[in-house]
């Protein structure tokens, strides 16, 4: 398995204190990506056993219901090995979370195994999504509908001016549809930031997205609309 970054965070990518492993490779090309290393095949190759050993060695830090979170890049691109690893981690009673764009075939073989699922739902407009990120909206929505009800979903929206801020109504429509299947999900709005800009530059790549910033008012209004429809909103 190829990993390009690791670190701990508290209650940001799943419950409690978590080891967050960024798996290399991504099937999308979001121009605002804050971990652009994941877009390229950077990082170090490890065996499943080595990663398993490292995660187990981190157990003392999995306090407050914590564990390990696999993100990326897109972690489900390495679903075969990830799946084996998750089984081994469960044998050790380690809580596992993935953060995924839910657009890959590998998603289906992994999502049922995890204890906590974070899905990026970036845009409800298929054309815009395809043009900007390369993602197939129908595949994503199909996967989300498959996953909903089997476990709690934590859905994240990167809220970006010029990309999806004009699509609030469409977001709502999608979540209302989802709600009909199950209300066992919540939505977190992540305001656009440029923390990844330096990384793009370090990689010798141009950071092409500009002026994506959103106001607190826009976020507040979006959240208010979600709440109006009884859609749970999260802030972490």
């Amino acid at each position, binding site marked *: 398995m190829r990993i390009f970054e*690791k670190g*701990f*965070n508290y209650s940001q990518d799943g419950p409690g*204190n978590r080891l967050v492993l960024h798996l290399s490779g991504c099937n999308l090309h979001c121009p605002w990506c804050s971990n652009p290393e994941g877009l390229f095949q950077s990082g170090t190759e490890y065996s499943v056993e080595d990663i398993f050993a490292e995660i187990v*060695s*981190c157990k*003392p830090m999995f*306090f407050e219901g914590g564990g390990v979170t696999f993100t990326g890049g897109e972690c489900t691109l390495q679903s075969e090995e990830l799946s084996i690893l998750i089984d081994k981690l469960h044998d050790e009673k380690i809580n596992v979370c993935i953060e995924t764009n839910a657009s890959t075939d590998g998603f289906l073989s992994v999502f049922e195994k995890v204890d906590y699922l974070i899905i990026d739902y970036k845009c409800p407009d298929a054309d815009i999504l395809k043009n900007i990120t390369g993602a197939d909206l129908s595949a994503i929505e199909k996967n989300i509908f498959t996953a909903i009800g089997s476990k709690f979903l934590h859905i994240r929206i990167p809220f970006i001016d010029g990309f999806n801020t004009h699509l609030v109504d469409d977001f709502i429509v999608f979540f209302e549809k989802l709600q009909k299947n199950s209300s066992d999900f919540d939505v977190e709005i992540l305001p656009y930031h440029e923390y990844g800009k330096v990384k793009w530059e370090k990689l010798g790549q141009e950071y092409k997205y500009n002026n994506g910033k959103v106001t607190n008012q826009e976020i507040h209004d979006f959240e208010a609309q979600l709440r109006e429809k009884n859609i749970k909103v999260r802030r972490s």
Partner: protein
Amino acid sequence: MSAQHLTDLAKKLFEEERAIKRLDGWFRIKEYRRDTDQEFAHLPVIEKAGEQLKIICEKLPISISKYAVFAGTQRDAFASTYALINPEFKVETFCGYCDPTAVYDDLKPDEEFTKERIENMRSYDRTIPYVRELTAVYDKYEEYTSEVAFFVEQVTGHVIPDMRPVLEFGIDKLISDIKSKIDTDNEKQKSTHRAMINSLEAAKILANRYRELALSDAENADEDEKERLLNIANALGKVPAKPAENLFEAIQSFIIMWQVMCLEQAPNPYAFSVGNADRIFEPYRKMTDMSREDTAALLKHFLVFFNVGDRSWAISQNLIIGGRDKNGNDLSNLTSFALFDAYYDMNLPQPILSVKLHENTPDEIYCEMGRFFFTPGVLTPSLFNDDAMFKVLKKAGIEEDDLENYMIAGCQEPLIWGKDSGNTTNSWLNLGKILELTLTGGKSAISGKKIGKQNNDDAVDVLKNIRWRFYHNLKYLTGKMADAANGCSKALANLPVPFLSAFMGGIESGYDCRDTENQGTKYNGSGCLIHGNTVVADSFIAIDCLLKERPEDAANLISAVKCNFEGYEELREYLLSRPKFGNNIDIVDKEAVEVTSKTADIVRSQLNYLGNHFRPDFSTPSTHLLYGYWVGALPNGRKSREMLNYGIDPLYGDANLGLGFRTLSTMKLPFKKMCGGCASHIGLDPKYFKGETYEDKGLEFRTKVVNPLFFNDVYEVSPFYVYLNVTTPETLRKVLENPKKYAPNGVYIMRIHGTFVNFLDLSPAIQQDIITRLDLNSTSVAC
């Protein structure tokens, strides 16, 4: 007097103290002793000490400030000396020599204390047995101390006297107890006990002088002042001779005793510690059911007492709050919380605050600490883990019933309250220098000087057997160090301390706590502060990598470190990129465990003057800078003269994956073997704590920092000490650039090693060290 009025007075008292630029009481004491040496020459040296203490207490000029509600000061026991808070201090000035007459340089001549008078006293001092013997020790071991392969010193201060019997029974009762023992004493014990009686009488003399002064000052005072002075006089009419019967009397009694204890060891008995002040004073608060607010107000004056002169020169006096008993019950009380209030409101550079934690520590303690950690420029407590410390001390031979009475002397050294003479800073071992000498065959890479065992062995062979050679060298030099350290302790035994000994178990044993032939305290040992464990571990791993991955370059490594990597920059980059301790990389973490464990065993195997073991203490109170300055380049890629790692921490800049990984590495270390103590610093960015109130942040701090580090059951013994600075380098730079804006009262408290100091008082080198070692990459919480 209202709590607010008491507080106002305490703040004015501190202001007044900070305006005092000149400290010369210690010099008078030196002269009193010299002038009576002949008169008491016929007496055993310990009896002479008792007699001279009485004379000091009779003659020393005294005064009572118009802001003071208690009589007494430590001012006459200290000189303006302590290096780290001296703006003149420079890292490169450390010379491996502790000249007891250098203190005379700290007294600026004036009309009263002329140059001639000072030099006369200095010349006399050079003739006394203590100074002659100490000088002989330094001369003998100069080869090793000049570039700090090790360092040794005589240990003054640095114990925790148990004054509670004075508060409870009064001096008169103690004197009567001592008298009852003399009949069955041997000659030496008789002398010691007689000296103790005289030295306790000295405290009564001093108390009585203050009482008379208060009465006399009251004659011409207005009503308010009269009340204040008569309160002092009334208290001193009882204490310390008789038992204290309320909190006011207890504090007054304690202050007089503390003053005399410091006068006995003047000049500069650093790092005497109070112990658990909450346990000392709570019984007396309870006698009148005094409120938290009123208790805090009185304690504010108690805290001001520990601040001496313009820079709070009486450094490293430790006061403890909280803790548990042997059954795990929490021992905090209302006085604990009043102490928090007093500390927070006063925010003084001294005394140092330590908080003992354990698994059953109540939430309220963490809530209280929130405001300390998250208010910029306010002091932060050092944190101790009782659960782990009990295990460490039990293994080191401390009896079960004594465990809850471990206290902290100075920065982080655990000692048993009133029973333990630990000579905590007796010896200092520099693993970095020893590794350098091992690599170079005994030739200093700094000066070319020959130090220790010499050889010209093949470079690659040296590297292939580096561990064996290093430990061999370490054993040899540690033996020399122990001999030298014991020499210092024997020299110091020429200056017995009967007053202190009365509160260290000397009444029962009949021996002085500095006696090198008969053990005066229940527990005794000698400290050894060990420097550079993780730097050495990183170096061993870098050598292994080089031999395995680039064997063709192995022959160049020793040449490279000898010339500080000049011309070997690429090799240095390679070495720097090898695994480093602090990132949860098993291979190097295991090496750090091995280095720490073996070094602790070697140190522990050394015996002191009484046949007791040395105590491994992995702490480096700014000496990671001073000693690093004398260490050449090392195979981990560290350049010549750069700092060593601080305490047990990763070397600055080497742990860059954040607090989680750093904590995982740290907790692997063999804390069970660190019975002399250890030091660890965490610099935290306040932005990681999201709680809305100080209380919330305090609880969050427990969850994110304390619990994982202290109360993880993964290893047999968890880390037991940490100190923190919650700030950023940018903030500190702003404080330095614009102190008037960020520290309007001239005080911005930061921690350096175990003590806290006014950041603005520090020498520039130490200010920069604090900024550097915040090392926020090693403690980041989010990725």
